[in-house]
């Protein structure tokens, strides 16, 4: 786990490789290609790269229109500008007609850190998840990012893919391509505790599981990279072995991964679910790690939470 790389960077790399492979792939960008890492694609394929300026709403509807000609647009910006500023464009003109547009966004969750709340997308997963026809995912590292960005090309229909601004560790073996929308991966087996995480929180969950193991607590870790469709089979599989579930997301606890998991379990199982994420609050400027610590999303927080629950429930 020595190799740290932001998933926006991994996205930029694979996108350029895909540009070579897929001649019908077109990229839209809103003046931040150097930051979202689409700049290399722009250099290599200038005729299939459209810089739309600082005008995201126009960009998303243009991409919708272009997709009707059979080309496959990847639309890149920050998560805040896609999910909030262009929310209606995504909902009514991409998701409703089910157009084949790939929304690929950097700066998910608290990963923009010091940029502050204006640039931290901490509700986008909840908003995007509530839109019909839209597939929503966040890869946990650079390897998964490569696989899912490529997978999105073959996946028919609109996709929302969320990346990190700051570097996060690589957790999967190089060239692992075993990631599919609608599936999850159990990356560590365990006992009565199951940690379900998404995106950059998968690493925090893994770290927490390691710490817990030192104290004889064996926690299962699930990478629920596909928030929608959710892998119900996986949830079913772990339900019988787990005494309780903890969800961890770099997003508000309202409407995102935690909510999705609760929705499933309340209808089918009698199993308590605890949600880690932003507790209905905005964050602030600060280093990514400091923010995780302060807002309760760090591995240390997860360990404490698990131990508290166990004490409370007498497990």
């Amino acid at each position: 786990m020595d190799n740290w790389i932001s998933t926006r960077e991994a996205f930029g790399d694979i996108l350029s490789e895909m540009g070579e492979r897929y001649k019908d792939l077109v990229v839209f960008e809103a003046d931040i290609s150097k930051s979202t890492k689409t700049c290399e694609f722009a250099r290599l394929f200038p005729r299939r790269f459209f810089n739309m300026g600082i005008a995201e709403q126009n960009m998303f509807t243009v991409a919708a229109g272009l997709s009707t000609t059979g080309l496959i647009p990847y639309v890149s910006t920050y998560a805040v500008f896609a999910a909030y500023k262009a929310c209606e464009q995504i909902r009514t003109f991409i998701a409703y007609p089910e157009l084949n547009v790939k929304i690929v966004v950097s700066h998910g969750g608290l990963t923009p850190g010091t940029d502050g709340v204006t640039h931290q997308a901490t509700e986008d997963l909840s908003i995007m998840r509530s839109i019909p026809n839209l597939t929503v995912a966040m890869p946990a590292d650079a390897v998964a990012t490569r696989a899912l960005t490529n997978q999105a090309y073959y996946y028919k229909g609109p996709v929302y893919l969320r990346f990190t601004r700051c570097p996060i560790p690589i957790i999967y073996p190089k060239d692992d391509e075993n990631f599919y929308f609608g599936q999850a991966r159990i990356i560590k087996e365990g006992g009565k505790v199951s940690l379900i995480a998404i995106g950059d929180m998968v690493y925090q969950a893994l770290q927490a599981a390691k710490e817990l193991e030192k104290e004889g607590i064996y926690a299962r870790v699930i990478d629920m990279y596909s928030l929608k469709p959710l892998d119900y089979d996986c949830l079913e599989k772990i339900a019988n072995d787990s005494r309780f579930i903890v969800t961890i997301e770099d997003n508000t606890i309202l409407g995102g991964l935690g909510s999705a998991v609760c929705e499933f379990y309340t209808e089918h199982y009698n199993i308590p679910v605890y949600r880690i994420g932003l507790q209905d609050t905005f964050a602030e400027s600060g280093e990514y790690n400091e923010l995780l610590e302060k807002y309760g999303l760090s591995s240390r927080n997860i360990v404490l939470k698990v131990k508290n629950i166990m004490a409370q429930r007498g497990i």
Partner: protein
Amino acid sequence: MRKADVSWWERVKNLKKKAKEVRIEIIKMIYQAKSGHPGGSLSAADILTVLYFDILKIDVTCPKWISRDRFILSKGHACPVWYVCLAKKGFFPEQELSKLRKIGGILQGHPDMKKVPGLDMTTGSLGQGLSAGIGMALGAKVLKLNFKTYVLLGDGELNEGQIWEAAMSANKFNLNNLIAIIDYNNLQLDGYCHEVMPIEPLKDKWISFGWIVEEIDGHNVSEILSVLERLKECQEKPTVIIAHTIKGKGVSFMENNPEWHGKAPNEEEFKLAIKELEETRNNGQLDFYP
């Protein structure tokens, strides 16, 4: 030169006749649906008629033909006029028109491209159609196809900021395959455009955004036809046609009255409207172009 051409006048005459039929169907549809937007549908009727029954390169047997011309009704609430044209063209049976806004039908209150054959873009939320049209025009450039994209905009929706984002980008990409038409009836839901949110000087605005501007009478079929015909052959830049129209055109009590933006006629009004439209259609004088 063309005006001396007999076949030209034949075309114009037929289109005028068609436009009257379109208007009658619009009123019938909205009356049956008990809701809908007659005013803006009637103001756009002549423009859509000319497009669908003369200008557009489309194939009813192959609605998704890749090289077809694209048309987007950005002012989606005026969809009755769009539905009538598509049905009369043969994209779907005319019986469907009686199921406007009805549950289980294909003709939604605002257009849904997934449900209606021949309909190129979902619209209804204003300010979006021009952007979508730019996407299609850009797609044509990338794919090296030479179809044209036509977008009909309402005047009221020019209040939307995204229209001007789109206007800027069409110029940047030099989209000489894109034609916007403004249905300038000077009324929006709450009243006159100049009262709700002034859009003048409109021509100057588009010129300053790098567009070529044409101005026509949006009810003069010959004028509509001649400008679109000319643009088909030669277009240097993205072009906008400011079409001066009358909201509710064709039904005297609906004309220029913002009340008829979004309401259906009652039985009495319906009969009155149809009578007036039918009389106009049967009046030989109006088939004659001065």
